């Protein structure tokens, strides 16, 4: 390391590794992981989100989880929360649907209305 620019490069990479502790997150994906969610495959859904996001190197997306959301018939349920926009809730998610949501919604900013079960808070 010889210059401030070198340091900056290392910093950016390290910040990426530490983003869970509060960095620049543009979009937060919250997977409902209650008992019914897990029974309906929420773990697979979450794993797919993690993989897709990692594969695409989306550094500003955070995947996290929450408990039962009360929409048992629509499980697995996923919220996509974007800074300054109403929350979008997707239901009956599958790994296939996750891939589409990642490409369409998270990358291109187009909500996949077919899977949406609720919007707003």
């Amino acid at each position: 390391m010889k210059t401030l620019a070198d340091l900056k490069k290392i910093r950016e990479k390290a910040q990426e590794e530490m983003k869970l502790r509060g960095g620049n997150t543009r979009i937060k994906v919250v997977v409902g992981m209650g008992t019914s969610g897990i029974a309906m495959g929420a773990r697979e859904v979450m794993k797919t989100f993690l993989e897709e996001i990692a594969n695409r190197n989306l550094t500003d997306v955070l995947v996290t989880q929450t408990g039962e959301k009360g929409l048992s018939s629509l499980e697995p349920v996923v919220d996509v929360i974007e800074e300054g926009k109403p929350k979008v809730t997707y239901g009956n998610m599958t790994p296939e649907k996750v891939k589409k949501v990642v490409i369409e919604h998270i990358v291109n900013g187009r909500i996949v209305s077919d899977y949406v079960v609720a919007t707003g808070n």
Partner: protein
Amino acid sequence: MSLKRIDLLICFGSGCLSAGAQKIKDRFYEVLQAKGLSSEINIIETGCMGPCDYGPVMVIYPEGIFYKKVTPDDVEEIVNEHFLKGRPVKRLMIQDEEDKTFFTQKEIPFYQKQVKVALANCGFIDPESIEEYIATGGYEALGTVLTTMTPQQVIDVIKKSGLRGRGGGGFPTHLKWQMVHDNSSPEKYFICNGDEGDPGAFMDRSLLEGDPHRVLEGMMIAAYAIGAKNGYFYIRAEYPLAIKRIKMAIEQAKKAGLAGNNIFGSDFSFEAEVRTGAGAFVCGEETALIQSIEGQRGNPTPKPPYPAVQGLYKKPTVVNNVETLGNIPTILLKGADWFASMGTETSKGTKVFALTGDIKNTGLVEVPMGITLRELIFDVGGGIIGDHKFKAVQLGGPSGGCLTTQHLDVPVDYESLKERGAMMGSGGVIVMNDEKCMVNVAKFFMDFCVDESCGKCSPCRIGLKQMLEILKRIDSGYGKEGDIEELQRLGETISKLSLCGLGQTAPNPVLSTIRYFRDEYEAHIRDKSCANKVCPDLMHFEINKDKCIGCSLCSRKCPVQCISGSREEKYTINQLPCIKCGTCMDVCPVKAIAKIPGMHSDVKAQREAEELQQQNQEE
């Protein structure tokens, strides 16, 4: 890029480690492995998070959920409930007296009045990872300084910030730097003083353990400013983890090209070394510390010459405390004005304190200068444990003094504390409840100083011993009129005549307790009574015959067989042989035995008779 979704930060500060943090981490590894979650969860060891009393503690991101007193048995529940189902475990969270639960670290009242500068990363990053330090802005100050500023400009920034030495003296940091900077000697040294020895203090240890790179960066900036190429970390051998972490930091920095030759492509080269001390309190005094690094016996030398003129190997040397260095990178990054906006007229920035004693939230805190003692003890510290009242607070360790309830609204800054007979010291805060005997407290600190006196100068070696003898006499019921005045006379003389800071400040605990608790000394001397029933010779045990059921348990358990009686007559204590061990009180099933302040009349009579006999013999 990683697939991680949870950062699990386990506090690996010394407090939490001794409370079992390692076992918890191991258990997490097992459980996560078993459930196939290892790839999703990062386990990170951090430095001290602060609330040591709640240890082992952990914070779980992204939410920042805070768990206290975690045991290996709790691990499975945390994984199942929190990690798998997203339901944080409420019973492991901190709750206040009104049953309010604090989910995240930010909400906890302990953290709310704190402002973290030196401790900014402590408990937040992995101290063994240079990358995590860099992620928080680490080494940017060093890079900026080396590539854009002259040494004098660095000193000017520190001057403007108003930073003063955090080790105790409160000497303006820039003055030391300027003196050595202006010296034309080709060889200069920089020393980081990590010889923290006050009973109840652990600020420097925590910072070295929790964020070693910050201290190293601070040292390098300082070395550049004064023109030194070599730096020493003097850390006591009792701090093995701090030594390990700072050595690791030096290695990592070298590997990354952040230490060694031509750092950031500049002309500045720097080598840092760790020297371990054998744990003598006097080696925290800078001249003794320098002797110790040179391989001599750790004895102080007269000042002047000050280290800034003639220090290590007779070359100009700056000695700065660990916490002082911890502030430097942030001051250069955020600016002198930002730092100076915190604190009071004469004391700028923040101060780290180690809260200990009869206080709810024992631990490590960092607060802005000028905060009142009341805020520090009751808001941050959570007040006194149990139903007791606040009695006194000892600031600055054995060199400091005791303050009382009347001082609770005193702002914590160098001058305000000094005016009242205490001192900022390095930041040890020992809070005492109304069960403590101040004569006993003074004796404890005097005992410590007598033990730690190096013996080089006679005021300290002989004078302190005399003070201790008088205190022991008072404490054991042989105090006499004039003792208080003699203590004061000795104390003031020792303060004036001692060679180094140890002797100059050692009488402080005695002088300040006499100043604020003179009535306790008088009661010990005149009435032969310790109101708080702490000094064994000035209290006694008594059995309440109305309550006693004659079970004989006390008599059977008494190690000196001084309790006699029968079921019918009940039991009595023969006061003369009693050794005040308190076993009888502990075993009594009906709580018929109580501690009574004051020497028992039988003992008093015996002592008077002995004295008379002695006088007769002399005649």
